[in-house]
Each structure stands twice: as C-alpha cells, then as structure tokens.
C-alpha cells in the first residue's frame, strides 16, 4: 500500500518529465562581431543578416526538425574581447560561431576554436594568414589579396601618380595585407605610394590635417582602408576642402553608410565588392525586401555574407544530418559548391571561399559596377 502511494507521484513526475524532455532541442549558433562604436555597422549588419537567416530557417520549421537559436555577442572589434566572447559562446553551448567580422580580431581566436573543435564561419574576414589551413575556420569571402590586386590594377590603369594610403590601425592585419599588396603591385608602374597614414579610432581624428597632408604630397589617388562611415566623414571634409583625389576602397567600406553619410562627397569613389547591391537577381531582391522590411535599412555585404554563412551551416547540417561541428565542417568542405544569395559559392578543402570580385564606382549615390 505504501509502495502504491509512492508510485503515483513518481509516475506523474515521469510523465511530466517526459513531456518536458520531449520539447525540441535547438541548434545554438553563436554570432560574434563588433556591434558598438565606430565601425560597428559591419558587425550590426552581419548580425541582422544572421538573424534574418535564422528567421527564414525557423519559419521553415528549422533543419531536420530542429530550430536555430542565435546567440549574439559583441566583440567590440577588439581581439581580447573577441576571445572572451568566443569562450562565452562555447560555454553557452554554441559549437558553431558566425564571426568575427574583421581580420584583426580573428587571429587569436582561431587557435582557440581549433582547440575547442568549434567551427567558426566568418562572413567578412579575408585574412590571408588564415588561408590554406586545415583549421576550423571557414571564410565566406576570398582572401584580401583578391581585393588588393583588383584595386591595384584599377589604380595603375587610372594612371594614379601619387598614391596615398589612409588606413585604420584598428584593423592592422587587414590594412597590412592591402598595403603590402599595393606596394608590391605598383612597384613596376608609374604609380608611387607617396603617403601612408594610419589612424586610431580611439583618438580624435583631424580630418583637415589629413587632407592637408595628402594634398601636400600631391596625392591624386587615395586608398582608404577603413569602414564606410569613416570614409564618408573623410570624404565630407575632403570635399569641403576641395580636395578631390580618386579614392579607392576595399569591400569593408562598401556599406550604405558610405553613401548616406558621404553624400555627394563620395561620388565617383571606387571600391571593390563581392556583391552587386543593385543586382536584379530575384533571390537577392527577395532577400533585400525581407531585410528592409525587418530592419528598415538596406542590406550591406556583411549582412549578405552573414546570411549566407548561416544558410551554409543549415545546408551542411541538413545534408550531414548532424550538428557536430566537425561533421559540418567536413560536409561544407567536401561539397564545396553552394547556392548563395548571388549564385554559386565555392569553398575549397581548407574552407576558403572563392567568389567573383568586382569593381564599383559610386554614381548618383549608387554602387555601379565598372570595369577596371
């Protein structure tokens, strides 16, 4: 009789427990990017892209019956913070991290995620030091050299005599790759690198002084390695001071902020990008509409790359029927060809993407694809 009295609550507990246990487990996906301060548009747009991807996946009842859960962390574009948030994401149960967004923060985190056997897919990092390695790092865009080479080609073709370089010290790895590549490229041409000025976002920028410096060096072509808003601000000052060299920008700066904040000052600026923001590709238009409706802004390349990163993970999980990061990695690197927002995306055995890169010029407030 006493046994019976004990059994009833036990049975009820078991039923309740089973009910709870039967609730679906989610696939936790981490997102890490710089979400605050100057230059945060890259990270925030990436976050929005990833969020949209997760929404799209979950609205389709998830992958293999499991929904995605995006856990977002702000690495403040700081290497130390990046390592910290990666640890937090892993602790929170994320075996896959979408991020980081700039190269300078990734170098220290990659060994860590390798050690932890966590898969990191970066939408925007294209650091060459991370190429050709059998690590746990997958990147969605080609190496920086691709960008640098196209810009060098353009600079040379446009007959720039005195090339100035303005770069952000806050993303030195990326900047160095560019500077090195440009220097290497122009060495046998008429173009000379006459000015090479770095700035720190944590310090007040004297744009007038910068303009004066470049003007003094008779710089007629300027490569700015910085985020779009920084470029826009510089453009405004430059324009006000009637200093209008030809400006060349990496994909990093090719954001909406550049046009909005730069206004007419950024007209005719050249830049490279992996995407064509005025594309009439139906898939892209659909994506753009969804993005605009959800976030009220136009998607930038980082948003698109982040979106594709999440979709890539979903595709790999679906095809491998596993959420194990190493299985996913193998699945990604094995299949190597994916259908992204802008068509096929090729990822090699080292997890490095191959994409077409194009030259754009801002005309009437839009990125217009031009030939170098």
């Amino acid at each position: 009789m006493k046994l019976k009295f004990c059994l009833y609550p036990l049975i009820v507990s078991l039923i309740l427990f089973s009910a709870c246990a039967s609730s679906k487990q989610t696939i936790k996906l981490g997102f890490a990017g710089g979400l605050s301060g100057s230059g945060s548009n890259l990270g925030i747009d990436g976050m929005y892209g990833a969020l949209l991807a997760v929404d799209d996946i979950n609205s389709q009842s998830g992958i293999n019956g499991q929904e995605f859960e995006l856990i977002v962390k702000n690495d403040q574009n700081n290497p130390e913070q990046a390592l910290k948030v990666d640890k937090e994401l892993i602790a929170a149960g994320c075996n896959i991290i979408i991020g980081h967004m700039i190269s300078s923060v990734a170098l220290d985190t990659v060994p860590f995620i390798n050690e932890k056997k966590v898969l990191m897919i970066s939408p925007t990092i294209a650091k060459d030091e991370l190429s050709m390695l059998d690590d746990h790092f997958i990147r969605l865009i080609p190496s920086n050299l691709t960008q640098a080479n196209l810009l060098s080609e353009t600079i040379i073709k446009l007959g720039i005599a005195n090339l100035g370089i303005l770069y952000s010290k806050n993303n030195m790895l990326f900047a160095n790759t560019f500077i090195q590549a440009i220097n290497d490229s122009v060495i046998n041409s008429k173009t000379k690198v006459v000015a090479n000025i770095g700035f720190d976002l944590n310090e007040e920028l004297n744009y007038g002084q910068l303009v004066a410096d470049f003007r003094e060096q008779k710089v007629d072509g300027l490569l700015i390695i910085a985020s779009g808003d920084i470029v826009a601000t510089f453009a405004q000052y430059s324009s006000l001071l009637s200093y209008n060299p030809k400006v060349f920008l990496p994909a990093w700066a090719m954001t909406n902020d550049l046009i909005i904040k730069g206004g007419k000052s950024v007209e005719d600026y050249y830049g490279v990008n992996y995407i064509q923001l005025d594309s009439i590709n139906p898939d892209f238009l659909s994506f753009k509409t969804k993005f605009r409706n959800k976030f009220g802004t136009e998607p930038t390349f980082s948003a698109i790359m982040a979106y594709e990163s999440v979709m890539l993970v979903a595709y790999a999980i679906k095809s491998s029927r596993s959420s194990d990061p190493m299985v996913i990695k193998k699945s990604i690197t094995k299949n190597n060809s994916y259908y992204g927002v802008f068509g096929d995306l090729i990822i090699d055995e080292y997890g490095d993407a191959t994409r077409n890169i194009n030259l754009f010029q801002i005309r009437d407030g839009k990125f217009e694809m031009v030939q170098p």
Partner: protein
Amino acid sequence: MKKRTPRLFETLFALGFISIFVSLFLAWLLVSNSLTNYFINVAVERNLEISNSITAYIDDKLREALSQLNLIRESIEFNKSSGSEINDLILQMNQINQSFVGIEVVSFEGKVVYTLPQHSSEIGSDRSREAYFREFEREMDVYWSSVQISPYTNSNAITIVVHSRDGFLVGNLDLKEIQELSNVYLEIFGEHKEITITDRNGIYLVNKDISLVVERRLDPHHSMAVDIINGDEVFLHKESGLETVLITSTQIPSTGWIASISEPYYNAIGGINYIIGILISFVTIMLLVYTLLLWRGNSKVIQDLRNFSKRLVNVSQGIETNSGKGNFKEFESLNESFNVMVDKIADRDKKLSNLAYHDALTGFHNRAYLEELILSLMKSPEKEYAVIYLDLDNFSHINDTYGHQVGDQLLIEFSKQLELLLDESIDIVRLGGDEFILIIRAIADFEKAILDLVSKIMSISSSPLKCNDRLIYFTMSTGISFYPNDGNEFWTILRNADTAMYQAKAVGKNTSSYFTQDMNAYIERRLLMEQHLRPAIKNGEFKLEFQPQFSIDGNIIRGFEALVRWDNPTLGRVSPVDFIAITEENKMIIPLGRWIMKQACESIKILNDRYDMQFVMAINVSPLELKEATFADSVIEIINETNIQPHWLEIEITENMSIDKYLSLKITLEKLHQYGVSISIDDFGTGYSSLAYLQNIPLDILKIDRTFITHLGEANDQNLMTETIFLMAKKLGLMTIAEGVETAQHINFLKDLECDFVQGFLMSKPLRMDNLIIFIDEYFNNKKLKIDDV
C-alpha cells in the same frame, strides 16, 4: 505473498486524506484558471498603464524636441539673420533645451548651411544622400530616422528633421537622451518588468540592458508587439529559448516607436503564488486540524471498537463489564444490542448455571458447584474458613414412613429455615439426599460465630416443620471442621467435617460435633468395615444368634428372634448397630437380609423338626428389603425351599416405616400375612406410629421397645405410657412382646400389664444354634423355665 489485512485506523485516515486532496485538487482545477486570468488581467492593466505613461512621456519629450526644432526654424525664418547669427541663435535655442547633440540647417541642395558652433566644420558637408531627402519627397512634415551612429558622438542617435522654407532643420537626438528619459520608469519598474522602447523595426532604443541599445539589437518580441498594437491584444509569448512573457505594447504616436512592457509570466501571476502560499498554509492548517479531528474521531471510533472488542473478550472470559457506552450513537446502539445479547446470554448462563450448580429441590448449590467453590477457596489459601457437614437424622426413615414426597417437602422447608441463617460469608451446598455442607469464610470472632451458627441450625429442629399438611419432627447431626487447623486442603476439611458429623450421629444423633483428630480412628474403622463387609457373606463371617421368646409365665417357648453377628478376622466382632447401617447405605442389606432369612428359616426347620414344635422365627427386615418388589416372593420361595410352615416365620418391621404411604409395602406385607407369615412391629414406642397405621397393616404383634421395659417400676410418666401401649395392643387384639426384660421385677410388671411374651437377658441371651439346642434341651428337660428362680 499474503495480503496484509489493512488496519481500520489507517484506512480511515488514508481515505480522509485522499478525499481532502481530491477535493482540493478539483477545487484548484476549478479556480486556478479564473485566478490566472484574473492576475493576468490585473498585470495587463497595470503594465498598460505603465506603457501608456511611458508612451505619453516619451512622446511629450520628443514633441518638445520637435517643438524646439520648429522654434529654431521659425526664428531663422523670421530673423533672416546672417550665418553667424543663426549659428548663435541655434546655440542659444539649444542651450535652453539641450536635447540635441547636433543641429544642422541643410539646404535643399544637401549642404549643411548652419550648425552649432562646435560643429562648424560640418558646414558645407553634403547630406543629400540622407534618407530624409528621399522621405521629404513624399511631402512629409517631420522625419524621424531609424537608429544610426551619430557623426557627432559616434554613438547611437536618431535624427529629427523638419522642413523649412530654405531647407531642412536637422536635429540629432542621442539615444542616451531617450534612455535617460526612461530611467525613471526603469528604476521604478525595471526590477520585475522589462521596459523596452524600440523603433518601428524593433531595434532597441531603450532597455535596462544598455548593450542591447548600443548594439542595435532587435527585440525578439517585436513582431508580437506589432501584433499587439494592431490587434490591441495581450500576448503570452513563448518561443524556443525564450521564457514565457506577458507583453503589453503601445505605440508612441509621434515616432511610431513601440513601448513594450514584458513581464515574465510567473511574475505576472505571482499573486497566485501568494494565494497558493495562503492556500498551502490554509490547507496545512486544515490538514493539521483535520488530522487532529480525524485522529480524535478515528481514535474514538477505534476506542469504541477496542472497548467493544475488550468487552467481547471480557464477556467471553466471564468478566463483568460495564454497559459499554460508546462515543457514537452507532456504537451505543451496537453496545445496547450487545448488552441485550449479553443479558440474554447471562440470563441463559444463569439458568444453565442454576441448572448446573443449583439443586432443583432446595435451590442451594449442588455438588457441581462445590468444584467452583473449591477453586475460589484455593485462590486465597491464607483465608480461614469452616465447613459444617449437616445430615438429617434418620431421614431415610422419614422417607420410608411418610414417603419421598414428604421427605422432599421436609428438605424444602428445612432449606427455607436454613437459608434464613445464611449471609454472604456462607455458601451452602446440598451434597445429595439429606446431606448439606456449609462453607463459612472467616469473620470476626470466627469460632464463636460458628458456635452461634451451629446453635441456630440445630434449633431449626426444635419445632416440627409442616410438610404436606403434616407436622414432621426431625433432628439433625452436624460436624464442624476448620481450615487450616483441621487440614491443609478442602477435601480434608470436608472429610473431617463428615467424620465429626458421623461422630455426632454415633453419640446419639441430634447433636453437633467439632472435628478432633481422634475421630479419624472411628472413620478408619468404618472404612475398614465397608471394605470387609463385601466378602463377608462369601467368607462365612456372618453368624446367626437366636434369642428365645417366652410366654410371660415362662412355660412356653414361643420362638426366637434371629440376630446377625459379624466376626471378622481383622475387625473382630462388629456390632450390628455399626455394620447394619453400613449395609443399608451400600445396599448390601439385600443379599445379607436374604442370607439371614434363609439361615433363619433353615434353623427353625431344624429346631421345629428336632423338637416337633411350632416355634416362631422372628427376623428383622430392613425397610430397604421390604421395598424390594420381589421381597414377598423371595420370602415365600425361601419358606418353600426350607420346607417350613409359613406361620413359623415372623417378619419384624420398624415402627417408623411409612407402610401406609407405600401401597406396595402394604401389599407385600398382606401377601406374606395371608401366606401365613406373622408381622410384628419392632421397637414399638420409640417412633411415631399412629393408630391408623396400626390398623392399616396386617399386624399380629407389637414388640415393646426395651426403653419402656428398662424403666418399668420406676416412678415416672413413662410407665403410664407403657401401660397405655399394652392396653392399646390388647384393645387392638395384638400380641405383645416385651424386649429387654432383664429382671424378675420386669416380669412382674409385665404380668400386670398382661404382656403376652417376653424376651431378654433374664431368660436367655442370644445363642448360637448349637448353644440354643443345648438351651432348649435343658429347658425341656426342666420342663419349664422358672422365671421366678431366675
């Protein structure tokens, strides 16, 4: 496995608890939904108030900022001042209200025309790609931007733009301002509620987690908030990875922003926890009270059951119990029914006990009860008691004389008298017949009390008792023995009392005797006699002696009275007084009487044949023999066997034999008398024969008892009685024989009384057959017995 029989208490307790829990559970099911809805509604109303308040507050502040912009715009338009003056004007206006971190006047061409002095470097900057340029093409009055990085502060900001005559007046409002505006609400309500303001896209503008604002995160509940605003509904939102929350949202009219209050569901219905707490307390108290009441109630039920069970056990063991009052009416009814049953059983038992332990005739306890009594006495061996053994003297004679009906009536009447003397310290048992024992427990001055009691008992016989309209005289003998003085156990005490009683009888009856150890010798002898009597006939230990009876003048030998003698090798000669009584008790008198009858008949045959005479042989017959239905036939058979004349035989019966009441005895006597046998009454005068009695039986001779003869010649009243007896016999035509004639003086008196025959030591003692022949021979040789010479 053997199934355990559940205990009533546990079952009642468990059922009580289950019923309470089930009731409470059902009650909770009924009210919990209503309670939840109530608390949700309360929470919604409260949150809606907060939300409306925030909305109104923020809207006011934003409108104030907008008003400030409009004021600046109007001032510029009104004053038409120079550039530096307008810059100063903007500065002054902004100092009044420092909501904006940056204010610009942008021309329709997109150039910054005026701005705050500290941002003067921005003058000339191009804003033509800003969103408000596109929006104002739709003829908007005011533009509210989405969140963006402020060019002035590098932090999140929104831009408010109004249309002016010459361009646009652009105000840059840092989100910190909005956050600060909301701080008062966050401080008051932020602990339990999440207060959020988002832009139209759900991007955080205000949240206590400032990082969500800084990082321009998207409110995960945004779509719910939009639905709430559109549908004016309250949402309980739960999705994977998010806790269930109660969302209340309102829209800020000026900007379209959304103010949401989200409260964890369990916080919203937290009041239920309070109620649950109260309920649990209430239920706990109720259960405690219930437990106590149940415990008490059940205990009473169990107590009643136990009491009832105990009563059953007690009743089964014969222990008196109370009437068994119960705690509940049902148990009282049960007890009452049980009491009725017990009473009936007790009544039945009493009847059975009466039947088993009481004597039907006297109502006294019987022998069976004695066993119980002994057990009772043995329980307290330290207590003294006395046993009185009581036996009516010659009760068998009363039975014989008046019949058993009178004898029984005498016992009843005697018992009534005896009962008057009893008290609670005395138990009385009728052992059987006329034997009673009284067991008296020690009281104060015990020996005197016993003496008084015995005296009172003995005094019962001082007056005759009326039995069936007849006054019956009787006497009794009592023997008294004390425990522990006279023995260690009851049976010894009883036997000793019996011994004392026999001693009383032995000394003449009608007396009492206290046991003394020397009485045992008598008893032992009596036991020995009983033991030796049985083979005595077979062993030829009995002999007959014959005492001659003579005519009063001594000239004629009438005959002889046969007297039995017992010579035992162990006991020696035993008096007939002793052993006849025993043979009567053990019925040996029947074969012994037959042996005597035959021996006597053979002897008279020898004598009459020898002397050619008609001697008469008188033989004493016990009443027990006479009651034998075959007695007459048996006598006739012996007469025939021994070939004697019937008139040679004379049957002596005792005076007290109640022949008139026993028709069969009368018939027996008449049969014998008609056959020729003479009938005489022995020991006449000592009993209670009536004249009718003498007339009703075929009587030939009266044998006057020796007590009358012994005292003849003495001056007393008895001589008158003796004379009357002889006169009466004469009148009745009866022959008379005087017994115990021992002196010549007796002869003389008897002659005067005209006695017919005499018998006694004066003439001859009883003689054995051989001596008798010698005596007769001598008598005849002398021709006659000269009585005068004796």
